[in-house]
């Protein structure tokens, strides 16, 4: 287990929430990928990625998230995102991830009308 990241899985109605604490990199991203695969295997169609405002995301982590976005399309899943700092919301926009995942300012907003 990578000590730089913790991913916990919870459920709210039909939404699977992956709470991500720590840095999102090529190495720690494997933990996120594993959590995503776990909820997918359980049949999740709505997934919320809840990031850590103090965590850092590098290009290796971005690649992991793109991989998840790609798989989610094949699986007919909707991915929403919350918890990102303003800087990383900008980064998501820059690389185009916002074409595949919608960013919400709070968990409450992300879960509304999901």
């Amino acid at each position, binding site marked *: 287990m990578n000590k730089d990241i913790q991913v916990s899985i919870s459920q709210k109605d039909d939404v699977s929430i992956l709470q991500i604490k720590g840095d999102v990199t090529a190495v720690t991203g494997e933990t996120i990928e594993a959590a995503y695969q776990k909820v997918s295997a359980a049949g999740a169609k709505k997934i919320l990625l809840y990031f850590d405002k103090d965590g850092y995301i590098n*290009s290796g982590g971005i690649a992991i998230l793109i991989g998840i*976005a790609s798989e989610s399309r094949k699986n007919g899943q909707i991915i929403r995102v919350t918890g990102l700092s303003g*800087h990383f919301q900008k980064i998501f926009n820059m690389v185009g991830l916002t074409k595949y995942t919608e960013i919400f300012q709070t968990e409450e907003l992300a879960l509304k009308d999901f």
Partner: protein
Amino acid sequence: MVMADNKVELHIPSIMGFEKVAMECSASVAKKMGFTEDRIEDLKTAVAEACLNAIEHGNKMDTKTKVGITLTVEETKLQVAVKDQGKGIDQVLIPSIEKKVAGKDKPRGWGIFLIKSLVNEVSFEPSPEGGNVTKMIIYLEK
């Protein structure tokens, strides 16, 4: 701001994760110079990506090598030079997320794009001592 010696230099091991040391050092210097929080975050990400390229592609994660970071403070700008001991990196085309999500390209390859997007100027040059240098400049806006 006038400094007799306007450079800060550090070396980090070619181990993923140590880019965070360079990030925090760059942030600290930028804060001292009066950059905004937003601009400091831009710089941190750019420095992280340059260091990761140096560690992974320049130095091939050889733990016998180091990545050198030199910060040069001037009145209106901060330059951060990241040097590896490798043979340089290939320039890449602008990455396409559409291709990557469609599986037509590997998901990685965002580092140089992010660096170019986040700083005012960037260059990639061979170093006179060998290796490759990524030089990034951010301007202090009044």
